[in-house]
C-alpha cells in the first residue's frame, strides 16, 4: 500500500481520554423504549464491538450517536464537546461517520460519485479528497475497476466496500459500522473484517455493531453486550468470547 488511510489525527481529548463518551443515553420511538441508560466509551485508536441479537437496540444506538434519532435522556460527548442535540450533518463534520445498515449506496450514481458524496464535507479540500480517494481504491481495487459503474449494479460485498470507502472520505475520527456482515457470503465477511482490522491498524477508531458476535469479538479489543436496550456486560473481547453466558447466548456452543 502506497500510503496510509488518513483519518484526521485524534487530538488528546479534553477532560478525559475518551474520544467518545456516552453517559446514561436513552432513546425511544414514541412510548416504546429502544435503548435505556447506555454508558459507553471509545478511546482514540480502539476497535470496540457492540454485539446483541435482533431488536436489542444496536442500530438505534448508532443512530442516536450520529443524530439520526433523537436522544430522550443522557449525554453524548465527542472529543470533549457535548454533541447530544447536534443535527447529523454537524456530527459528521465533527468526524463521526457512519456506515449504515444495509449499505445504502446511492444506486443511480456511479461508484466515483458515491465516493465524492462521501467527501461532501471535505469538498473544499480537493487535494486531500483526491489522495484519499486513491487510497480507498488501493484498499478496494475492485472499486477502482468499477469506478464508472452505477453503484446499484454492484454485488452486495462490493456495495459494502463502497459504503465503507465512502465513509472514509468523510475524514472520520470515529467510524461507526452497522452490521457490515449483513447478507454477505462467508468469504466476503472475512474480506470485510480483514479490511476493518487493517483500517484500525492504520489508526482509524472504530465502533462496530454486529449480530455476528463471534467474528466481531474476534477482531475487537473490547466489547459490549447489548440486551433489550441495555448494556448487559462489557469486558475485553477475549474475555467475552470465553464467557459461558455469552457463549451460550451469542456464539451458539
Amino acid at each position: 500500500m502506497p500510503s496510509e488511510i488518513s483519518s484526521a489525527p485524534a487530538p488528546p481529548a479534553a477532560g478525559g481520554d475518551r474520544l467518545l463518551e456516552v453517559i446514561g443515553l436513552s432513546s425511544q420511538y414514541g412510548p416504546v423504549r429502544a435503548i435505556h441508560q447506555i454508558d459507553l466509551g471509545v478511546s482514540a485508536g480502539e476497535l470496540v464491538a457492540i454485539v446483541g441479537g435482533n431488536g436489542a437496540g444496536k442500530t438505534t444506538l448508532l443512530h442516536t450517536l450520529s443524530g439520526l434519532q433523537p436522544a430522550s435522556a443522557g449525554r453524548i460527548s465527542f472529543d470533549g464537546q457535548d454533541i447530544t442535540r447536534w443535527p447529523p450533518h454537524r456530527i459528521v463534520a465533527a468526524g463521526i461517520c457512519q456506515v449504515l445498515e444495509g449499505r445504502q449506496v446511492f444506486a443511480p450514481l456511479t461508484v466515483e460519485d458515491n465516493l465524492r458524496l462521501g467527501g461532501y464535507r471535505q469538498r473544499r479540500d480537493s487535494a486531500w479528497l483526491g489522495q484519499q480517494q486513491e487510497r480507498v481504491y488501493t484498499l478496494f481495487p475492485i472499486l477502482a475497476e468499477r469506478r464508472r459503474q452505477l453503484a446499484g449494479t454492484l454485488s452486495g460485498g462490493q456495495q459494502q466496500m463502497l459504503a465503507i470507502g465512502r465513509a472514509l472520505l468523510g475524514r472520520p475520527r470515529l467510524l461507526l459500522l452497522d452490521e457490515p456482515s449483513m447478507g454477505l457470503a462467508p468469504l466476503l465477511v472475512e474480506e470485510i473484517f480483514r479490511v476493518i482490522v487493517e483500517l484500525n491498524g492504520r489508526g482509524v477508531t472504530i465502533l462496530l455493531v454486529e449480530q455476528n458476535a463471534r467474528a466481531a469479538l474476534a477482531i475487537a479489543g473490547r466489547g459490549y453486550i447489548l440486551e433489550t436496550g441495555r448494556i448487559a456486560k462489557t469486558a475485553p473481547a477475549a474475555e467475552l468470547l470465553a464467557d459461558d453466558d455469552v457463549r451460550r447466548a451469542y456464539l451458539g456452543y
Partner: protein
Amino acid sequence: MRLAGFYAFAAAVALLPALFPDNYFVVVIGASAGLNVILAVGLNLLMGYAGQISLGHAAFFGVGAYASAILTTRFGWPSLLALAAGLLAAGLLAWGFARPILRLRGHYLAMATLGFGVIAHVVMVQATHWTGGPDGLAGIPPLNVLGWRVEGDLQWYGVIMAAMLLAVWLSLNLVDSQVGRALRAVHGSEFAAQMMGVDTARAKTQAFVVSALFAAFAGSLFAHQQAFVSPDSFNLAVSVELVTMVVLGGLASTFGAVCGAIALTLLQQGLVVFEDYEMLVHGALLMAVMIFMPQGLFVGLTQAVRRLGSALVGSKPPAAA
C-alpha cells in the same frame, strides 16, 4: 464534451427559424415550448433530483408573471427591474414556505403543495385591486432589455430561446456539482445523505427555491410576451401539466424534462383537431407512454434509436452508460 448535447440542442434551436422562415408554428409554438422547458427543467431539479413533489408549481410561475405585470403597469417600473423583483418575491416565498412544508413526505407533501397552489390561485382571483381579478391585467409593456424593446414573434422566439438555453445550461451544471450530487443523495436515501454530512433540510430548501426561481423567470417573460395575464394561466391544471412534463420526459434528466415539455406542448397543439375528445386522447397517450416507456420519453426514445441503429449496422448494442 460533457456539454455536447447542450451545444447540439442550442444549434438546433438557432437553426429552426432559418430552416422554416416566417413559419408561425415554429416561432410561436417554439416560444411557448421554450417557456414550458424553463418550467419543466426547474421543476425537474426539485422532483427528479431532490425527489420532492410539487403540485403547486404554477403558483411561482404566477408570482413572476404578476410581479412583472403589476409593477410595470401600475408603478411604471422598468421591465428588467420588475423581473428581478418577481424572482426575489418567488424566491422569498419559496424559502419561507419550504421549511415547514418540506418536512412532509410523499402524499402529505403533495397535498400541502397542492394547497399552496390553490391558495395562490385564489389570491390571484380575489385580490382584484392588484391583480385585476378573473379579468386579469392587460396592457403589459414589452420587455425592455437595456433599451432594446422586444417585439414581434421572431424576437420573442430569440429571447425565450436564449432564456431557455440559459436555464438548461444552469441545470446541467448544477446537477453535475457537489450540490447536485447532494440533492440526488437526498432522493436516494435521506439517512445516507445525512451520513455524508449533507444538511438535507437545507438541500431540499435550496432545490425548492431554485425551481421557484426558474418558474418565476418564465412567468415574467410570459407576462411580457402575452402582454396580458389572468389567473387561468396559473391554476391547478397548469401545475399538473408541469408535473406531467417532467414525468413524461423522464425524471432526473435535464434533457428528459426538455423532451417532456416540448412533447406536451406539441401534443396540446396537435390535439386541437380532436376538439371535444382532446382530453381523452391526451390521457390515453400519457398512459401509453408510462406503460411502454416507464423511464420517460428521453430514455425510451434514445434506447429505441440505439436499437434501430444497431439493427441497421448489425452490430451488438453498446452497453448502456
